[in-house]
């Protein structure tokens, strides 16, 4: 499911990370910080964002964003199923598995 409205929602606020934003970032990143870590991280991230503000000093009007610095020929794979059944090897590093599947705590969609 994709909607163009997903791209822009609220207008950007000034770049500084407060308690509320740290929590939002924790949620997005799936990382939970302790109270003390939260403060330190907010401070560090704000410092980095302050530094990054300088991106705005450069006039980039009309410049196309560049993703790939080196252009290459398109690469395709032919439609062939070449892989063997390697289930056991794929499960060997799993923290938990059962009945040939990766095992996770019960979850509902």
């Amino acid at each position, binding site marked *: *499911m*994709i909607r163009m409205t*997903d*791209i822009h929602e609220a207008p950007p606020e000034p770049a500084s990370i407060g308690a509320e934003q740290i929590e*939002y970032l924790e*949620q*997005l990143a*799936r990382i939970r910080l302790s109270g003390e870590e939260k403060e330190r991280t907010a401070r560090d991230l704000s410092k980095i964002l302050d530094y990054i503000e300088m991106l705005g000093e450069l006039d980039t009007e009309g410049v196309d964003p560049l*993703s*790939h610095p080196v252009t*290459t020929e*398109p*690469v*395709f*794979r*032919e*439609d*062939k*199923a*070449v*892989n063997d*059944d*390697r*289930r056991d090897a*794929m*499960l060997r590093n799993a923290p938990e598995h*059962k*009945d*040939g*599947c*990766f*095992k*996770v*705590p*019960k*979850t*509902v*969609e």
Partner: protein
Amino acid sequence: MANFETVMGIEVHVELSTKSKIFCGCSARFGDEANAHVCEGCAGMPGTLPTLNRRVVEYAVRAGLALNCEISRFSRFDRKSYFYPDLPASYQVTQLYHPICKNGHLDIVADGKTKRIGINRIHIEEDAGKLVHDDWDDCSLVDYNRCSVPLIEIVSEPDFRSADEVVAYLEKLKATLQYLGVSDCKMQEGSMRADINLSVRPVGSEKFGVRTEMKNMASLKSIARAIAGETRRHIDAIESGETLIQETRRWDDNKGFSFAMRNKENAKDYKYFPDPNLMPVIVEEEYIREIRASLPELPEEKKARYIREFGLPEYDADILTGSRYLVAVFERAADICKNPKEASNWVMTELLKLLNDAQMQPEDMKFSPDSLGTILNMLTEGKINRAVAKKTFAEVFESDVDPVDYVRKNGLMQVSDTGSIEPVIREVLDANRKAVSEYLAGNEKSIQFLIGQSMKALRGKGDPQVVRDLLIKGLDERKG
């Protein structure tokens, strides 16, 4: 309800029928043991990289051309990030910013009217894995076989106003994609899935109501029920002043109600950005021309031709062309027996009945495409009679027997030589004096009974015409 209007748009996910997955060499086959088709790439191991399956682009372009889309010369893949166990890399590769096809349409017929449904875009993406819930062990088990199977997502404009329109669109879409050979579109197996975006507004209002998205409908009937159920829920909420939330909901067909999805589909932010591991897909004009030239005859053209060339009734032509699998049986049979009308009649009556009795979809048919034509030839040549033909076809449908073998092994060849039939006729006439007298007394209907008795004695194999002729001859002789 009369005061409200339902506005719907549909997102259809279609699994492409490629042999391998979109970014790795694992098989894309459905129905095998859990995690049998998984490698480092589709299990999201560190250090793995995607390489695009050429056929995926080809199939997406085929679908786009058949659905009257503009094909983007430049398209690109983006990552859509969210955490869920069915997504091993924790992002799905999709096309948000530059989809491969845009601005198409599909004409449908619903409530006797033709309507043009706008197609906003078609983009390529990868499928996710599957979770099975294990109640004994209070855990969930993850299977990555479907992970990275190629999909196209076909996003319509919000042009639908009734469930009938939605069903007509999905049927037409399914037929078209099956014709193209890009997908088998089996809703029960999940290779075609429709999500319905639905909102309700007072009739005459220009503004859209709050939209919800519904997932998890496994059949067209379930979709129709879901639309009715969700529309009711929206109207109830509007009328009782409750606030509707824009969210993704899961339709529970047994309970007849939708429930908000808790985890996966209501992530706050998908953090889309272009996937640095994949180069843009550049499609040349020449390539588009080649694909366009290779497109098969699509349902509408075919239907017109059936009416024009074969003189089929419009209704029959419409049903036949509704599925490429019916078309395949019909065209092969017509080709073999050189009698399209007869072939059409058999598909329309016998085959549809068999499918209906077996609760099967045309795509589930398993018999050899030559069989019906062979049966019809045996029928025209007088080798079997109509009753045997039907019986044989049922057997072909059921277990894909070779019709000629089947008829021979079971001794079902039609008996039409008078030498074999005459003694039987004599016995029948001798044994059924009452019917004979009635016939001779002028009740010509009695001959039907005598034909039945004779066919029975011939174990169904008698040539009905010969039997009738010989009976009349024998009866005439008894007139004395």
